[in-house]
């Protein structure tokens, strides 16, 4: 039996004639990080807002920790932290007061509240900012404080909508570290991002959405395996490539041979054994092999493969 913290079941949300979310179903196990990717307007934010109980689906349901977002929104809110794509800060409020307010708003009282705020300040590494006004912080620091706000009540599920948007590279790295630490702490995380390279380093699995429909879910490698049954390999010789293309085409399982960027790239329909035998064959045939590599497909390849490379 799976240990799903989040389970979406045929979620539907239409805005007039626009099918923002059209029968979305997937699940995320406890302690896992799922990256939610798709082009602009694909339905990521709408789905996340429904999960955060800010919107109501017109069909289907989603369960967080066993609670329905439609019928038990109050219980869902207790175990869910949501960080939208805006900072949501207050004027004339210090960092400590900001976190303190949200702790109070989550019905934390007395010692529990103070401990929760102190823990968050320590975890986020913002101890020296506690008396600074939130509005005066940089984007990266505001993002940190916002993440602190989202987890001040110690939720089991964290929903992060474009958390790394508008952050500089250093802030992104820091943010990535925080997310990994939260996941290591056992929190289930659902996050969307435009920066696919960031996601691939943070996520255990991904869900690709377009036009409100889920196109694929699973690990990047699993999805790519489903999309591309053949391996993409390339060879670089120490000398000219004369005869290499012809040799490769004569080998069993090799297709789509072409030269690109000083190397010959091709696809191999087979597993490790076939790959080893091919390398041996090349060397035995006297080709001066300088480099033989497999193309390590990432999230960007997956995204382009599935969505046809439309704008993110």
């Amino acid at each position, binding site marked *: 039996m799976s240990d799903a913290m989040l389970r979406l079941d045929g979620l539907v949300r239409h805005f007039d004639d626009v099918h923002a979310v059209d029968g979305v179903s997937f699940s995320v196990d406890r302690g896992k990080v799922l990256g939610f990717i798709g082009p602009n307007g694909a339905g990521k934010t709408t789905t996340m807002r429904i999960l955060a109980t800010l919107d109501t689906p017109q069909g289907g349901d989603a369960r967080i920790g066993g609670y329905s977002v439609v019928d038990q929104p109050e219980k869902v809110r207790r175990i869910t932290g949501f960080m939208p794509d805006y900072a949501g800060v207050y004027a004339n409020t210090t960092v400590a007061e900001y976190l303190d307010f949200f702790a109070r708003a989550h019905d934390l009282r007395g010692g529990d509240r103070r401990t929760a705020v102190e823990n968050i300040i320590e975890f986020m590494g913002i101890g020296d900012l506690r008396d600074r006004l939130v509005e005066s912080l940089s984007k990266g620091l505001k993002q940190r404080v916002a993440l602190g*706000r989202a987890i001040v*009540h110690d939720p089991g599920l964290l929903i992060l909508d474009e958390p790394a948007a508008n952050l500089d590279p250093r802030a992104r790295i820091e943010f990535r570290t925080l997310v990994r630490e939260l996941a290591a702490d056992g929190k289930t995380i659902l996050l969307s991002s435009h920066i696919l390279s960031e996601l691939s380093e943070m996520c255990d699995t991904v869900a690709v959405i377009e036009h409100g429909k889920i196109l694929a879910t699973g690990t990047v490698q699993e999805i790519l395996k489903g999309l591309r049954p053949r391996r993409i390999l390339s060879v670089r010789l120490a000398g000219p490539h004369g005869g290499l293309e012809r040799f490769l085409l004569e080998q069993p399982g090799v297709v789509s041979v072409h030269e690109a960027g000083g190397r010959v790239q091709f696809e191999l329909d087979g597993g490790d054994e076939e790959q080893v035998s091919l390398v041996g064959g090349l060397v035995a045939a006297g080709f001066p092999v300088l480099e033989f590599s497999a193309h390590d497909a990432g999230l960007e390849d997956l995204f382009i493969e599935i969505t046809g490379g439309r704008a993110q």
Partner: protein
Amino acid sequence: MSGAGRLLDRLERASDLLSPIVVKEVRQIVRGREFVSAFGATLVAGLAIAFFSAADAVSGSGTAGRWAFGALMSCLAVLGLAIVPLGAFNALRIERLEQTLELITLTALTPRRVVIGKLLAQAVKLVTLFAAMAPFIAMSFLLGGIDFLTILLLLAILFIGSLWMSSAALFLSSLLKSRAMVGLAFAGGILVLFFVFGVGRGLMFYLSRGVFTLGPVFGIGFTDPWWALAALTTFCLATMVNLVLLAENRLALAAPNRVTPLRVGFLVQFLLIVAWALSFIKTPATVRPEAVMMLGVLGGLHLALVAMFAVTEDLVVARPPVGSRRRLLGPFYPGGGRGALYVLAQMAILMGAAWLLEPEPVLMRWLLAICGYICFFTGVPTIAVRALRPEGTASLRLRVAIFVLLPVSLLLPDILYYVLWRPEAMDLSYAARHLFNPIRTLANWPLVESVEWSTVPFALGVLGVLAYLGLSHLGRQVTVEMVSTAPQAARAEAGDPGSAGALY
């Protein structure tokens, strides 16, 4: 830990008893430029008034206190009726603009707690500003010319008035988001302020003479200021509760039923109006007709507003009530044409209360005409649209249509008359063409009866009541069909989150 540290720690622990919104708002308010400026200006104004009144007192008139208190009250009125409500308006507007309200919605705080918290925070601000003026007010009393009771009453009235204005500002703020609408609201607010200042001057006049008159138009008055204050406070509190419920209704997400608390709140407000009218039951027979007229005007206005929203509600709602709750509290639940029954029940109460006051039959017919016009103008357009498209037309469009229909009925007969008949002289006197104009007809009721034109308003009223009953029947039919055919369809009609009007 030092003594001060221990005190702060104890206060911090005690703050757990307060609403989180109050704690946050007060923290923001005391750091805000607006509060610091208002507080500073209050002190400067207080000092200036104290200086001039002291100079006046030297002349030995013995009435310098009255002038000083009047001037201080003017300052407090600006703070209480303008600065504080404006602060309430901005507090919620900024929360919506910056989308922090969404973040609060995700916590354990309900929209009602948010609105009440913001109102209480403004009360704290007001008390602080009053406290700044307290020494100067005490001085005005010592200078003579004004008694302690008047001071106390006026401060209490101003405090209640300020809270009422703040709750109205919060409601407005929950309605408006665009800058243009905010501008319009402020223009309206300024007009209201002029009106309030006019009323305030009247209050001062009456109170300074020990007589408080609630209904100068009708000649009904209270000679006991405490009774007057109690009546005013009760009415203000009832309307404040409803304003808070309305604001909550606007801010709430789509899922919960936000209509039932509102209907209960507005029924209580209506019952207070009725109770106030019935308090004249033992007065001489010459006074009671005025109470009936007051009941007609206040109750009629109340019912017209309530009918505009309750009768035009969507017939199909997300979660229809089921079981015994439905039978017991049916009219308080949204959808299914229950709004029409809710209004009809209040009309029956209005007529019953009027009958207990034993008025002349003409007054009873006048009240019937009021109810008839309300039924006609809200019921007939609604049933016409709903019969054609029971689930299709949004309530908002219907309400706008009715809102347009009323001024059309007021102006069109005259416009048509002058365009088609081209009379030589402008004739503004009441005539048969004005029978579709409820305001003029009701204002000229004795004339309407004397020339036997009352059949028309009654016929319109019968049409209206039939429309209400038709709506109730149609609503029941639609609900039964919806439940039996597609339970999911109800959710599909949910509309946009946060748009209360679209849902209920």
